[in-house]
């Protein structure tokens, strides 16, 4: 039982990171209807920018995260302007490949600027705390708490503000959004900004428990894709729930089935769910 709860906590930590990454991915999917294969690269850039802000500019951790969210958000906007906007009327395959091009570029870029080696991100929250006999570090509590707070804020933003609703509206009918006076260009940029920021936040939170390196995006991106189809592509609650399902299935699968096969288990869950519900858990209704 004790082990079970410790593993639930572990699953919660990873699940939080996955959810944050998947949220950004699903937002962009909702608007542009493209799976952004370069999202993992944004995650990676987030890690590096935070690290650089801390080590080179001497910013404290929190400030560095904010700076990184802003910078990577802008990178997302740049991506939208330079690549996805020109491709908005192209067949759906094209943006996928274009995204791959960006991914290759950003990884090479990171290697060029920061080198190919592993780097460590220091955190002021490295202390270990034991709650009811379960071990956590402050960093891990921070991950879980910030993920939950961000999710609530995002939900409120999308549901309760006009600007947020404009993102949803545009996801459903771009021209319709235009006709009620929404500046669709701005919304697209805003969405990419949010998506990039979320990726940067996830990376900045997760890096202290792992490492920063050019290939770090690969750790999360495939799983993020699993999550968003698990949840029903473009669905916000789907991304959150899917993230935690994957986090738990990994930690519990590794514990009670096999560590070596835990990824296969996670993917098998996906296949089973999609076999039963071909449009994901939170599939959208309506015509």
């Amino acid at each position, binding site marked *: 039982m004790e082990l079970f709860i410790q*593993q639930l906590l572990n699953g919660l930590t*990873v699940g939080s990171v996955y959810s944050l990454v998947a949220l950004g991915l699903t937002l962009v999917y909702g608007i542009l209807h493209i799976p952004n294969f370069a999202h993992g690269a944004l995650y990676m850039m987030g890690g590096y920018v935070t690290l650089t802000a801390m080590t080179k500019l001497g910013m404290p951790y929190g400030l560095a995260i904010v700076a990184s969210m802003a910078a990577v958000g802008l990178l997302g906007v740049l991506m939208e302007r330079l690549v996805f906007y020109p491709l908005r009327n192209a067949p759906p395959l094209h943006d996928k490949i274009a995204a791959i091009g960006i991914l290759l570029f950003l*990884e090479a870029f990171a290697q060029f600027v920061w080198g190919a080696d592993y780097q460590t991100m220091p955190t002021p929250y490295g202390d270990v705390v034991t709650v009811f006999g379960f071990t956590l570090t402050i960093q891990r509590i921070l991950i879980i708490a910030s993920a939950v707070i961000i999710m609530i804020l995002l939900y409120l933003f999308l549901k309760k503000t006009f600007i947020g609703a404009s993102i949803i509206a545009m996801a459903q009918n771009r021209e319709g959004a235009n006709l009620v006076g929404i500046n669709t260009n701005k919304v697209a940029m805003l969405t990419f900004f949010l998506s990039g920021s979320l990726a940067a936040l996830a990376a900045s939170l997760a890096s202290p428990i792992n490492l920063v390196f050019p290939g770090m995006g690969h750790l*999360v991106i495939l799983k993020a894709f699993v999550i968003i189809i698990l949840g029903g592509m473009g669905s916000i609650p789907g991304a959150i729930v899917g993230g935690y399902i994957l986090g738990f299935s990994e930690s519990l699968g590794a514990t009670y089935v096999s560590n070596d096969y835990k990824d296969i288990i996670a993917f098998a869950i996906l296949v089973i769910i999609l076999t039963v519900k071909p449009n994901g858990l939170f599939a959208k209704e309506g015509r």
Partner: protein
Amino acid sequence: NSSTTNNNAGGGNNNNGGGGGAETGTVNIGYSGPLSGPAAYYGQRTLNGLKMAAEEINNSGGFEVKGKKYKINLVPLDDKYLPNETAANAKRLVQEHHTPIIFTPHSGGVMALQVFNQTDNFIIAAYTSEPKITQTGNKLTVRIPPRYDGYIPTFTDYAMKRFGKKLAALPTATQYGKDWTEKLLPYWEKQGGKVVYKSSIDFTKDTDFFTIVTNALKEKPDVLFIGGASEPTAKVAKQARELGFKGGFIIMDQAKLDEMKRVTGSYDMLEGSIGVMPLVESDEPAVPEFVKNYRAKFNEDPGSEAAYNYLALYAFVEAMKAAGTVDDPQAIREHMNDGLKNIPAEKKVYNVPSIGDDGGFESEIVVAAVENGKIVPIELIDK
């Protein structure tokens, strides 16, 4: 066969000393490894060792074979860790650059090359510990890294005596890690130890190691066997400590204690670790100079990948001298023992007295442990 010499090397990029007159020839040395993508870091480190050796040799005026001066021109190509790309690169290196030797730092690439290296006539300088590559009877393969089974008795003995008999194994999920595990665990059990947990961590896929470390620790091991690239290995050690682990670590030789320290902050967290002696702390006389130069050139501490490849290039150059040819791979391979012997003392960052019949370097190994926050050398025991 066409000649491997051509005046004024074509297509190269390491041409120092620019055109030393008509009597200076150039030997092209090929390299194919991961220079982009997730494994690029590893690929570059192996390449760095070669670059440094080549530069040193060229700066000192090249080397002389049968009265003729030669310089080295290193031709590195990226294969993204993919065997078919390695094969294509090798074809290109042989056809367009006439390289008698091609370095490659991964077993997949080596195996893809072994299909045709004897017909196309070039030596594979293999930086991989995969035993199979020297078991196939390929006559033109040279395996550079040391055999890791030499470490096992010493590691086992030390860890078992100091901490206890229960071992949990959490090595990296690469073939190297797996081979290590397959050698270590039986030995551990033979010495009366117990393996309480065994799994592997895939550093390219796992975001967090808490889950697996939790699972390993629930079996209350006295010793953890970990290893892989230094930095993630250090993270595993750190998280084990965070989860309350008080025992010792056996660290697979791929990870270096000094590099791990950079992640953990100090040696305290690694107290009781036994692993390979960090190059920077080694007492081989050639090491300080090498470390100094390497730092100056690449702005980081060298690891064994760089050092072994550095050494290997010197060995090949000496072998060419001994064989009296720069373009006959078979003759060069036959003179490898002479080559190893003739490496100048100030370049011997490791002591490799000989090459086995199968083509594997037979290195001497040095072991160290962390005791009271300091690196101390540990005497080798024989099995």
